[in-house]
């Protein structure tokens, strides 16, 4: 194997990227950018060369038969509407299938990804040709196809391991995401549903409608954004602080039956979330057990009920409280271990200085916990901004509001997004909201996450 013969040479070959390979390579190497695998084929690496060539051929066939058309379709997004056209020669109306803007765009996105893949293969082809040329020039043996396969278990193990997951990620995450982001710049809403009606590019119009003062959309967007942020702050902070206090109380020396208490609280986390949420929805219903209990206790009239989910303010408070019920045990669970790691002598010293438990909590426990759990805190804040389940399964976003565009008073941006795409079929607006949520989260994470030690020193503990 050439690797053993020339460890030095391997290193310099490894550094040869596409650009330097192309520059330093001879004519054959340069031609490999056009005819994939040429450099390998000419020097007897038949299988490797043929594989590269076959990929290129398949791509060219695809582009000629289908791909080029689909790229053109992306520009127009279809011109022929579905409908009937008068046929002069036969004297009848003919049914015309028409274009489908949605499919045009989808195929174009797929074509673009295939093109990117083939460009990647081009760099592979050139680098492979250069490696062959370099090895010949330096008198090393050329690796056979068997050697190539064997390298997958050694220096190219990452290729072998990542190929499956990456295909999954590209097909089920990246392609749909790119498609959706492009939709945000079209008018693909309930009025423009292909194939009956075509949609087309509208530039930044959707963003303007969403953000500019005065439009129907912006009178929904800003209040919903406001509530989303309020909700995320309240939900995160209340769960964090209360959960930590609960963990401390259970952990303290004097408390007995520690595992019993823990079990009692963990039970509410252990049952599936949708079960607890749906149950809570019925429990706080206008005729649900809570209202009945209040009636029996005489706190409200015999036929009255507190509008837990039908009054905007009550609904918001109820949801935050129920979220405490769901989230506090979870924080307790995750913080217990970290709390036990706080060095005991810190507390010892504080007690000698005469600090009471509250001072100890704010001066020692909280700073220590904040230091260790900042990434968790950010994650849970992000999770709360995207907390679809709690809102959708509890209140469904209600009470509905006439001032809003298909949103209720407790709708978060994500539940509004869900309603707009699934119920309303305003796909473009849903995509715009998704992008805006991303912008908010990305800014937030950049501001905070990059400052944490665990990001800066990823290798510190290895």
């Amino acid at each position, binding site marked *: 194997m050439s690797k053993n013969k020339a460890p030095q040479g391997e290193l310099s070959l490894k550094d040869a990227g596409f650009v330097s390979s192309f520059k330093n390579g001879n004519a054959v190497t340069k031609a490999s950018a056009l005819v994939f695998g040429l450099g390998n084929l000419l020097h007897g690496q038949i299988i490797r060369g043929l594989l590269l060539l076959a990929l290129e051929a398949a791509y060219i066939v695809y582009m000629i038969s289908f791909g080029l058309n689909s790229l053109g379709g992306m520009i127009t997004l279809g011109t022929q509407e579905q409908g009937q056209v008068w046929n002069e020669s036969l004297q009848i109306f003919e049914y015309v299938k028409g274009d489908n803007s949605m499919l045009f765009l989808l195929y174009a996105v797929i074509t673009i990804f295939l093109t990117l893949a083939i460009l990647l293969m081009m760099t592979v082809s050139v680098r492979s040709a250069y490696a062959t040329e370099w090895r010949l020039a330096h008198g090393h043996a050329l690796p056979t196809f068997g050697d190539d396969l064997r390298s997958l278990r*050694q220096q190219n193990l990452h290729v072998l391991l990542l190929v499956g997951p990456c295909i999954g990620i590209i097909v089920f995450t990246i392609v749909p995401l790119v498609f959706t982001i492009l*939709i945000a710049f079209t008018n693909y809403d309930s009025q423009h549903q292909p194939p009956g009606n075509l949609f087309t590019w509208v530039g930044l119009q959707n963003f303007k409608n969403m953000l500019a003062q005065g439009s129907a959309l912006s009178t929904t967007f800003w209040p919903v954004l406001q509530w989303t942020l309020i909700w995320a702050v309240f939900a995160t902070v209340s769960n964090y602080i209360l959960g930590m206090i609960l963990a401390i109380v259970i952990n303290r020396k004097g408390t007995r039956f520690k595992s019993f208490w823990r079990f009692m609280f963990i039970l509410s986390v252990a049952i599936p979330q*949708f079960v607890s949420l749906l149950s809570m929805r019925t429990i706080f219903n206008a005729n649900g057990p809570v209202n009945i209990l209040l009636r029996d206790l005489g706190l409200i009239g015999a036929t009255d009920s507190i509008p837990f989910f039908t009054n905007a303010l009550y609904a918001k408070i109820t949801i935050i409280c129920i979220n405490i019920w769901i989230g506090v045990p979870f924080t307790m669970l995750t913080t217990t271990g970290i709390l036990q790691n706080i060095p005991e002598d810190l507390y010892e010293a504080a007690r000698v200085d005469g600090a009471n438990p509250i001072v100890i909590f704010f001066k020692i426990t909280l700073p220590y916990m904040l230091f260790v759990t900042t990434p968790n805190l950010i994650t849970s804040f992000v999770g709360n901004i995207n907390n679809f389940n709690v809102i959708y399964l509890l209140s469904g976003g209600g009470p509905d509001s006439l001032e809003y565009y298909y949103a209720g008073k407790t709708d978060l941006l994500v539940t509004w997004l869900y309603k707009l795409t699934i119920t309303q079929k305003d796909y473009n607006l849903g995509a715009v909201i998704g992008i805006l949520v991303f912008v908010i989260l990305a800014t937030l994470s950049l501001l905070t996450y990059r400052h944490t030690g665990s990001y800066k020193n990823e290798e510190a503990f290895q």
Partner: protein
Amino acid sequence: MKLKKFITNSIVHVILAILSFIWILPIFFVVLTSFRAEGGSYKTYIWPKGFTLDNYINLFVERGQLHYTKWFMNTFIVAIFSCLLSAFFVLCVSYCMSRLRFKMRKPFMNIALILGMFPGFMSMFAIYYILKGLGFLESGVMKMIALVLVYSGGSGLGFYIAKGFFDTIPKTIDEAAYIDGATKWDTFIQITIPLSKPIIVHTLLTSFMGPWVDYIFAKVIMGTETDYYTIAIGLWSMLEKEYIEYYYTQFYAGCVLISIPIAILFLLTQKCYTESVAGAVKG
């Protein structure tokens, strides 16, 4: 001093008792209602007039919209396949990120970070159309395969916890194996994987539980085919206005039945999680 300590301790225990009472109350109510003999939905009282097991028995009798056993089996099958596939993906990716050094490593991690910031179901209608284009939405069985793919397809992005675990395995172990002539592949299969049981179990269980609690994707993909519903959308549909009067008590029975295995799994996961955070090789 002793008396003061006694009083504080008593107060703490009383507060804990009250709190755990509040935390248990809704669960108790669910269990209570699942045994209620009277049908219908909301009553003007809380304590049932009579008790029965019929709610549980009726779950297993096929009737109208209710296919509890089918829903259970659907979810079980989807969960098994998607947890195997996602665990495989997650282990591959996290091992690469933790142990192998290659050019695309940092970019990959940054891309994963960026993708994580988009709302998860923002592109669900695009996924729906892609699946439709690939012909996955033709029949119920194909829809179940589609569901498995949706649950596990992007799972490679969730590599953080497993990567953190692999990071705790000392690199000296790997180096010792290389000196003995093992390839990186051998090291992965014969050294790292056997040392990683807690994180493998944790990954398997987490992804196994996903389909039991997911509502959004199951609903979008299954649409109105109640035969192929998973348990989450099945139970949800029992609470819809036209069914709630018939299925209210059975809904609770279904909730209790499904909660027991999930709760047990969750407690197991927690145990593995604590173990995996503690690290692989104790020094």
